């Protein structure tokens, strides 16, 4: 999943509409998977492009039932369907809604139908234009697990437009940063988050997503050990079998630094790492980029510390330090598979990120 991220009006939606063929820029060139869809001489019309488009508003056909809305694209595909009707209905929890009219659905349900309808048109590329922006927090929490599940179970590349970093952190693998009509930079999400020169790291609530693999579970204390590139994290709770991959989010404000290995602390996670960059945030704070591991070879993490601490501890680029991580949030594809169970047993209300730590 590639996220196009940037402020409103920076041209994210225009990019998506051009890929879909809904909009045509003069002297544009577009090739998808080796097929040229637009160049100087040719322009493939929208209905001949194997895309699925989820608009910002669900835009269901008011004159058709949910079932007919879902089947609209499916009926019109030329190739044999790979994604089946029942599969999509199950994936998006639409089974009980099929005979309803769009007017009888809640906001979240409409969005799910719109996503299902796009999927059933058998796209080779799914385009999603802020599919959550019109929803309230509760409805967003309802859809996100479905999006994560989709990401996990279907192997369709997705171009996802958003101006909400929380969605991006949760869903995206690859990030394209846009501003005023241009691509500023692009790369793996986790790399860009840890780059202090980019706007992402300067945000107040900045965090970095890490790919983690479940390594062991300590039944006595109920602690799961997760392996990340360059170290291990311990988090309370059980998060799947060994080998399960999860995404964890480490907020810069939850990371504190110490030159010596801390001896007595209630904080479980103390990881050795190296300072690779540091940037003054404002008069008070510094944003420090760390790389996990003894030689600083692992994943990047950000720490937000005061300027006073930086000077008092005599910190500098290249030094080895210990990062104490107060808490990590588990998100990503795995969280969705747990969510329905959590709801059933009443352990959690909304399947949002699981905060774990201390």
């Amino acid at each position, binding site marked *: 999943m590639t996220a196009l991220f940037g402020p409103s009006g920076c041209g994210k939606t225009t990019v998506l509409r051009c890929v879909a063929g809904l909009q045509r820029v003069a002297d544009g060139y577009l090739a998808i998977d080796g097929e040229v869809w637009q160049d100087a001489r040719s322009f493939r*019309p929208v*209905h001949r492009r194997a895309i699925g488009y989820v608009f910002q508003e669900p835009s269901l*056909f008011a*004159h058709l039932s949910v079932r007919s809305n879902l089947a609209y*694209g499916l009926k019109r595909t*030329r190739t044999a369907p790979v994604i089946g009707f029942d599969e999509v209905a199950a994936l998006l929890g639409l089974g009980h809604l099929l005979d309803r009219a769009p*007017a009888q659905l809640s906001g979240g349900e409409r969005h799910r139908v719109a996503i299902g*309808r796009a999927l059933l048109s058998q796209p080779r590329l799914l385009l999603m234009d802020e599919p959550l922006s019109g929803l309230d927090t509760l409805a967003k929490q309802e859809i996100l697990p479905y999006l994560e599940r989709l990401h996990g179970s279907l192997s369709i590349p997705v171009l996802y437009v958003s101006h909400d970093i929380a969605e991006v952190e949760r869903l995206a693998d690859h990030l394209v940063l846009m501003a005023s009509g241009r691509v500023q930079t692009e790369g793996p999400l986790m790399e860009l988050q840890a780059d202090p020169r980019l706007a992402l790291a300067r945000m107040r609530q900045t965090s970095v997503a890490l790919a983690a693999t479940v390594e062991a579970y300590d039944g006595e204390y109920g602690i799961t050990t997760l392996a990340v590139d360059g170290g291990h994290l311990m988090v309370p709770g059980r998060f799947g079998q060994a080998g399960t991959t999860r995404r964890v989010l480490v907020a810069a404000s939850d990371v504190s630094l110490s030159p010596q290995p801390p001896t007595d602390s209630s904080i479980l996670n103390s990881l050795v790492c190296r300072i690779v960059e540091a940037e003054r945030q404002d008069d008070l704070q510094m944003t420090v980029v760390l790389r996990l591991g003894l030689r600083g070879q692992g994943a990047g993490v950000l720490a937000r510390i005061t300027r006073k601490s930086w000077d008092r501890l005599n910190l500098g680029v290249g030094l080895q330090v210990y990062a104490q991580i107060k808490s990590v949030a588990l998100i990503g594809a795995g969280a969705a598979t747990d969510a329905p169970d959590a709801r059933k047993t009443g352990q959690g209300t909304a399947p949002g990120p699981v905060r774990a730590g201390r």
Partner: protein
Amino acid sequence: MDDAIWQAVRLTLVLATTTTVVLLVLGTPLAWWLARPGGWWKEAVAAVVSLPLVLPPTVLGFYLLLMLGPNGPGGWIARSYGANTLAFTFEGLVIGSVIYSMPFVVQPLRNAFEAFGERPLEVAATLRAAPVDRFFSVAVPLARPGFLTGAVLGFAHTVGEFGVVLMVGGSIPGETKVLSVQIYDYVETLQWRQAHLIAGGMLVFSFLAILAMMVIDKRLRRRRH
């Protein structure tokens, strides 16, 4: 009731039905084209279509008479099948009615096509529907209230036309003598009873047509929201 009235009723219904069908067939693509984004010349075409709303029916009828007559295009067409003129014929009356009632069908259709905007068509396109497919599977069903309004207004308006009919159709029983002309004849000849009968009947018909349209329209809209 005398035969003259029945004959006029039958003729009026046939004329109004034919006109409505022709108008729906011609007016739908026209309204669709007008509803798409375009330049000022689209508004010029729309203005021409709307002319009968403001033009005195006798003016329209006068020009139609010239067009349909032996020296106009209508005359050439008539000669192709052995007649001399389209004026004072049922066919000529249909052509006149179509032009006269055109705005009453095209305008509601255009409004209906414009009401749902570009989005549903874009969605249909991304779901692999080709342009003609999009029109029939999305635009037409979504514009259903407009079709209903247009059909009822077009029909009722044709039933009620008088000036144009008199100019291009004259008053030939069974051929061009419709109800509105029949009333005029009765009043002129002081046959009040028959005039009352037709006038009252048309009043009731008009009321019922408008009422039915409003009720059905409300139903259709409620189902959507």
